[in-house]
């Protein structure tokens, strides 16, 4: 376990009087798809902000590939909840944003990103503006922008939360397929239990604030998972839902 891609050991964080994270320990192995589920306001996005370097943690430690995570190292590629596409940049230039920030020239970055457009279902839309794309397509652009940064892990913050139910279901299947074909390490933050169960190898359930890890689920089923195949998935889903509902009371 020492060579985990990401390891949080008893991480805590407070804002003045408000204790947000009490004791959060979790790990993500290379090539794994891990989800963090929790009630709203539990501190899911605080964990993300610690990982992107936007916040510093107070106690515990965060390790990346065995070494302490520096706040300015930018080891992870972050995909925010809303797509955060720049309306003034064409689709291809939105996709290259991370590479340009890393210092690559726009021409070189375009050349590198271009071959991926077909696989992301975006071929022919390179010269469009974000306002011309549907919600699902915009999220695919956002994921493309995240993936091409070639960071050691993808941080997805409720990536499909703003989509309608049907598009969300389609995008979850699509992401599941993409993850199977690529060697991505993913940490997904979500409050959608079904989404977490469908996509993840492992799921951590957070307690309400101040957050600690309440439960931990292993889902040792192959990907991509059929929508109505195994009876294990609905059982786990029901169990997690029950756990979360009990918390509310």
């Amino acid at each position, binding site marked *: 376990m020492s060579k985990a891609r990401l390891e949080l050991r008893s991480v805590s964080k407070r804002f003045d009087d408000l204790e947000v994270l009490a004791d959060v320990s979790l790990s993500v192995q290379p090539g794994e798809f891990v989800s963090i589920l929790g009630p709203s306001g539990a501190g899911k996005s605080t964990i993300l902000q610690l990982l*992107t*370097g*936007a916040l510093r943690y107070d106690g515990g430690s965060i390790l990346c590939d065995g070494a302490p995570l520096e706040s*300015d190292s*930018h080891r*992870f*590629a*972050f995909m*925010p*909840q*809303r797509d*955060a596409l*720049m*309306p*003034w940049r064409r689709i291809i230039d939105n996709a290259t*944003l*991370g590479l340009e*920030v*890393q210092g690559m020239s726009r021409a070189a970055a375009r050349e590198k990103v271009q071959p991926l457009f077909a696989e992301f279902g975006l071929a022919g*839309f390179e010269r469009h*503006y*974000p*306002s*011309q*794309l*549907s919600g699902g*397509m915009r999220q695919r652009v956002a994921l493309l922008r995240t993936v091409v*940064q070639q960071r050691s892990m993808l941080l997805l913050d409720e990536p499909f939360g703003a989509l309608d139910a049907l598009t969300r279901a389609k995008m979850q299947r699509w992401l599941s397929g993409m993850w199977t074909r690529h060697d991505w390490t993913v940490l997904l933050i979500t409050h959608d239990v079904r989404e977490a169960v469908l996509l993840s190898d492992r799921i951590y359930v957070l307690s309400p604030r101040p957050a600690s890890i309440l439960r931990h689920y292993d889902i040792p089923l192959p990907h991509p998972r059929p929508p109505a195949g195994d009876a294990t998935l609905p059982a786990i889903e029901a169990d997690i839902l029950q756990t979360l509902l009990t918390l509310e009371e």
Partner: protein
Amino acid sequence: MSMRSISSGTSRVFSDAWPAVTSISALILAWEAYVQFSGISPTALSAPSRVLIQGFEQREALASHTLATLQATLFGFSCSLCAAFLFSLLLDFFRPLRRALFPVFIITQTLPLVAIAPLVVLWFGFGLTPKIVLVALVTFFPMLVALVQGFESTDRDIEALLASMGASRRRIFVAARLPSALPYFFAGLRISITYAVVGAIFAEYAGAVRGLGIYILNAKNNFRPDLVLAAVFVSATLTLCLFGATVLLQRLAMPWARIAEFKP
């Protein structure tokens, strides 16, 4: 796409414009009829036809005075834009300065132009300088507010995303805050350009060698309301043209904002 949008754009301009054209024509016709049938003296109120004819006879003088006003407007406005941009940068990067400087800028907006214009002419003479100063005085603050507000309108998610990628503060400003401010900038520009013409004419009215302001003053002193109105008409046209130019500029600078909604 471009051909269709251009032709539909032109027909839309026509369909949008006809109510305005009709109401303005009706107003001018009523004015003409009133002057013709009420027997009012032409030194009190001139008919639009007389304004048009006299204005046309004076076209060379009007043109050269208009050119002077245009020059003062554009010079003053450019200076004001540069200053507003520099100060907006300063206020964006050094937040505490806002509290120190904003009250000063607000005070400049409370000064009555009638009182300030003659003083500025007194200090800077009859040349171009007092016009530039007055135009800048009336347009600087609206432009500054537009820019500062525009920077603030930047999507927090986009800034957080750039920061997570390792972008510096300067990089975030150039890549996110500056383009986010464009719609606000152009809204400010449209308002300010109309103030700018009025400011220039006011400065000329207070004392100048050339310009529509001094032309209006002379025409009034010579009991020529027809020429006053001709100059007013020219200045209104000038303002409309400058306004149109800012709209055109915005369309060129923000191509993404006018892309027809097309969703696959």
